[in-house]
């Protein structure tokens, strides 16, 4: 063990911390380190495979004897399935396997009624049309408002509206005392809609058993290969070691794909019963209805401040529905800023609807829409600039630096007084802040093999959710080995390789980077020890840089050093010791600035420009970091202006379960996006890498809401901000 000094922070705000480094372990990267590969622009190592269609997604897995499975789903939201007649289905040539769910209760439209597997998708479609079902239909309630009313049909045996123990946070007395001491109080109700994940590749996969029917391989569209392995093994009653999960490429998860679902288990049963590989990928309608969603919210907010701009009380009562279960519909509100007293009470509301799932920054986009618009409403009432008001009540060192960068880039000085414009088309500027926990945790194990021929393989069994994990692994390995990313082979997405976490909470890159670096470091030490053995010298004084061994007795390229090996080096990285580095700040920070144009005659809102300044600790790949930020912004625009899951209250079925009625931002709706990664040394691990995927979609809707209010002088307190709401706010309906 030796004590080392590591510089954390960013230019203009630095601090030095002391770190105990175990012998034979890498010294944490700090601000002063001159890294060659990390933080630069690197095209994805699999870019060519993806754009040429060679990359194989679960959707693309084919076998000559492949069969297809699908589940017939209830159009009713509440019912008992009294009879399922499969006689005609079973008589259909090509149908190989059926299951009936007769007698079961239906608690949402989309609940399973009967399952069929057949030799072709066409026969499967014919078969589903032949299932005869009788339902005993019961009263249902699909809207959160309606479910909260006394006398509403209940979804489970418990009441529809439940405040869990975790649903009460903060101190109500303190919040109310702060309100009393305040000069200005704003009370408003904000609302957000249900958003579906809308992954371009739907849920599902292909299941194939070995000849004895003992070992199962699943090609699964998942953001957690090991999560799928665990859940499908448990649900099938087999051992985890009997299951291999493979995810080479996937078309989006956003929090909805952490394990095996009912349809996957049905697919595995069909495959086992028929002895043939079976495929079940949800269709688009199923994906919208049962593949998960971001719960809606109703947020009654009361914020207060002193006339000098001191933020005082923040009190929020919220209701939201994650569908037919309980809970899981909380919001992050109030937060971020220094409230003198804050309290929130959050109720989960059960409805007869498809269940919510984690969705890119759970609780945050919905909470921040209300929180950030409330901050603007309060600033407006105080007669303060909303940016100045935030800076006065924020202490995060990173965000305080980001405010100025963003304001300069958008031209915040141009911002006119809210509602001062008179013409038909009005421009508005708005902004909002972002936060997310610092992430990354021990547990990820990485293998690094250096071959006698100089080839390098880095392997881990978890998946690339789409953020470019292969490239991240190549970059971190290349940095440590003094090579170029393209000189590293990466293998991932197969549970036969070492364990890696599911891609949730923006943890993948942050968790992977230290273990990759550690594995490469260990392999390097072994390689250099061999060099010392072969040609003499002190291995501790040698290192690898620019494809060469430095500090050796004679000039040696990396390849020549490998040539001295007796056999391949197999090293492993991971463990708690990589994480004993203090953090620079308490959480990840970001800001977004938005310019919009509102057509006051039609109510149309067009986003003109978005500036995003986002902290993610140390940037691994600046190119894909900006790409992530662009994606987060686009998803945020889509949430703010377009997306909305609509269930018909009379039948309970979804009316817009496609990509025409369920609208999201298209190419023409996407504005100029200026993505500025805030590269800093945040500590936490030997690489200092932190979260990025989620925080960059957190504040977009709030910033857009504020920009719209700046343009038209009135807040639209509900997303999506559609033309009808804008016209209504303007009194033009």
């Amino acid at each position, binding site marked *: 063990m030796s004590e080392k000094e590591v510089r954390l922070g960013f230019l203009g705000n630095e601090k030095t911390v002391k770190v105990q480094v175990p012998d034979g372990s890498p010294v944490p990267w700090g601000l002063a380190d001159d890294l060659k590969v990390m933080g630069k622009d690197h095209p994805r190592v699999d870019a060519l495979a993806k754009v040429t269609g060679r990359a194989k997604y679960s959707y693309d897995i084919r076998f000559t004897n492949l069969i297809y499975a699908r589940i017939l789903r209830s*159009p009713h939201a509440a019912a008992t399935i009294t009879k399922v007649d499969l006689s005609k289905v079973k008589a259909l040539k090509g149908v190989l396997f059926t299951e009936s769910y007769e007698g079961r209760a239906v608690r949402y439209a989309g609940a399973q009624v009967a399952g069929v597997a057949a030799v072709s998708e*066409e026969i499967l*479609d*014919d078969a589903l*049309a032949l299932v005869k079902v009788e339902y005993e239909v019961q009263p249902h309630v699909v809207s959160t408002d309606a479910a909260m009313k006394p006398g509403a049909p209940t979804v489970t045996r418990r009441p529809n509206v439940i405040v869990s123990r975790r649903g009460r946070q903060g101190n109500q007395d303190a919040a109310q005392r702060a309100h009393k001491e305040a000069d200005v109080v704003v009370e408003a109700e904000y609302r957000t809609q249900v958003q579906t994940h809308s992954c371009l590749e739907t849920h599902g996969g292909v299941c194939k058993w070995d000849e004895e029917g003992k070992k199962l391989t699943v090609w699964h569209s998942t953001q957690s290969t090991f999560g799928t392995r665990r859940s499908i093994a448990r649900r099938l009653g087999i051992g985890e070691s009997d299951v291999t999960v493979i995810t080479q490429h996937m078309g989006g998860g956003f929090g909805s794909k952490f394990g095996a679902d009912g349809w996957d288990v049905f697919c595995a049963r069909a495959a086992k019963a028929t002895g043939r590989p079976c495929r079940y990928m949800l269709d688009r309608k199923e994906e919208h209805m049962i593949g998960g969603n971001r719960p809606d919210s109703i947020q009654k907010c009361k914020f207060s401040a002193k006339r000098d701009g001191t933020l005082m009380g923040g009190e929020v009562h919220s209701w939201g529905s994650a569908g037919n279960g309980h809970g899981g519909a909380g919001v992050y509100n109030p937060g971020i800023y220094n409230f003198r007293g804050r309290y929130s009470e959050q109720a989960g509301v059960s409805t007869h609807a498809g269940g919510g799932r984690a969705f890119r920054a759970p609780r945050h986009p919905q909470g921040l829409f209300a929180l950030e618009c409330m901050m603007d409403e309060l600033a407006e009432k105080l007669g303060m600039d909303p940016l100045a008001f935030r800076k006065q009540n924020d202490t995060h060192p990173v965000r305080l630096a980001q405010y100025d960068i963003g304001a300069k880039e958008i031209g915040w000085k141009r911002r006119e007084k809210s509602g001062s414009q008179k013409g038909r088309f009005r421009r508005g500027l708005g902004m909002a802040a972002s936060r997310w926990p610092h992430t990354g945790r021990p547990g990820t194990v990485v293998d690094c093999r250096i071959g006698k021929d100089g080839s390098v393989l880095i392997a881990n069994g978890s998946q690339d959710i789409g953020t470019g994990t292969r490239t991240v692994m190549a970059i971190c390995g290349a940095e440590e080995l003094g090579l170029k990313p393209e000189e590293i082979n990466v293998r991932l997405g197969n549970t036969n390789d070492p364990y890696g976490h599911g891609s949730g909470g923006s943890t993948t890159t942050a968790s992977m980077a230290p273990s990759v670096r550690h594995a490469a470091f260990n392999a390097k030490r072994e390689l250099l020890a061999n060099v010392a053995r072969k040609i003499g010298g002190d291995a501790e004084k040698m290192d690898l840089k620019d494809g060469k061994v430095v500090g050796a007795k004679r000039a040696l390229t990396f390849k020549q050093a490998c040539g001295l090996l007796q056999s391949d080096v197999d090293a492993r990285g991971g463990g708690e010791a990589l994480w004993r580095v203090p953090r620079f700040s308490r959480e990840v920070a970001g800001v977004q600035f938005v310019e919009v144009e509102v057509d006051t*005659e*039609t*109510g*149309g809102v*067009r986003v003109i420009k978005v500036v995003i300044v986002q902290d993610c600790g140390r940037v691994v790949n600046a190119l894909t970091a900006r790409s992530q930020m662009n994606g987060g912004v686009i998803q945020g625009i889509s949430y703010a*202006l*377009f997306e909305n899951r*609509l269930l*018909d*209250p*009379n*039948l309970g*079925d979804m*009316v*817009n*379960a496609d990509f*025409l*009625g369920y*609208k999201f*931002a*298209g*190419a*023409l*709706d996407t504005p100029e996006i200026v993505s500025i990664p805030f590269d800093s040394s945040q500590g936490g691990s030997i690489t200092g890498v932190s979260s990025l995927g989620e925080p960059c979609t957190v504040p977009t809707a709030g910033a857009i809401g504020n920009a719209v209010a700046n343009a038209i002088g009135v807040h639209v307190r509900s997303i999506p901000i*559609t*033309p*009808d709401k804008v*016209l*209504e706010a303007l009194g*033009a*309906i």
Partner: protein
Amino acid sequence: MKRFAYLQAASFGAAAKALAARNSVAKGGGTDLLDLMKERIVEPNEVVSLLKAERGERKGELSSLATLSETAEDAWIGIDFPAIQQAAAEAATPQVRNVATVGGNLCQHTRCWYFRNKSFDCFKRNGKSCSAMEDGAHNRYNAIFPHDSCASAHPSNLAPALIACKAKLSCVHPDGDRVLDAELLYTEPERNKMGDTMLRQGEIIRAVVLESTPLTRNSIYVEFRERLSFDFAVASVAAAAHIEGGKVKEVRIVCGAVAPTPYRSKAAEKALTGKPLTDATIAAASEAVAKGATPLAQNRYKVTILKSLVREALRGLRS
């Protein structure tokens, strides 16, 4: 999807014969037909593709098989019938416009999501009632001039433009061809529920017959979409005016996406005829268009947007 036979017709005559004889549907670009068949909303025994039929259009005709892209890029259409050019250019996406045809655009079914989901009752699908008019129904995109039985909104971009330009449709049928006013193509849902049009079984639009006049040359099409990429219009307006001596000699104002069929506002036309196009007469015309609107619970905003579009279109005709 129900199994079907596929026929590639070599001529409109052959296609008409095939369509008259069997439970069949005509296919142009097929961009929507496939979706309707997958949802079993349309279940033909035979699909008759017109794409390889001899177009045979004459001077002054726009083939019904012309794609929307071809229509939008046609110099003749652009100069003599700007409303038609603009309507074609605004539709869907470049990919759809490259395959979708003029005939298909005119004969497409409504996008009303209650029509397109068989779980719901739908008058147009021979059901008892209109689910879009039920309390609480999601009808924000439906008609603001609904009929008693159906609140669907007509989705065609081209139809209002053709009607504004007094286009005629040359139709082929085994029993004899005919020329139909574009305005008479559409019929109330009460008369021909699923069909939308007055075309008889086996009748196909061969070409749009266009005559360039001062009215058509001063025509315009405007629409409002919620999103700019790939969306159907919330409302659209095609207008054409023959202005002589500073006064409106003749004018046509036809609205899309506001009623089960394209909605021609004779009241607005009357408000303008014989008068100059001024801010005041334009405002009066826009009020006249909205008069008689009976919006549903969620679509009052469409009336405001429609009025704005009428003003925008008429201002465009003035310049």
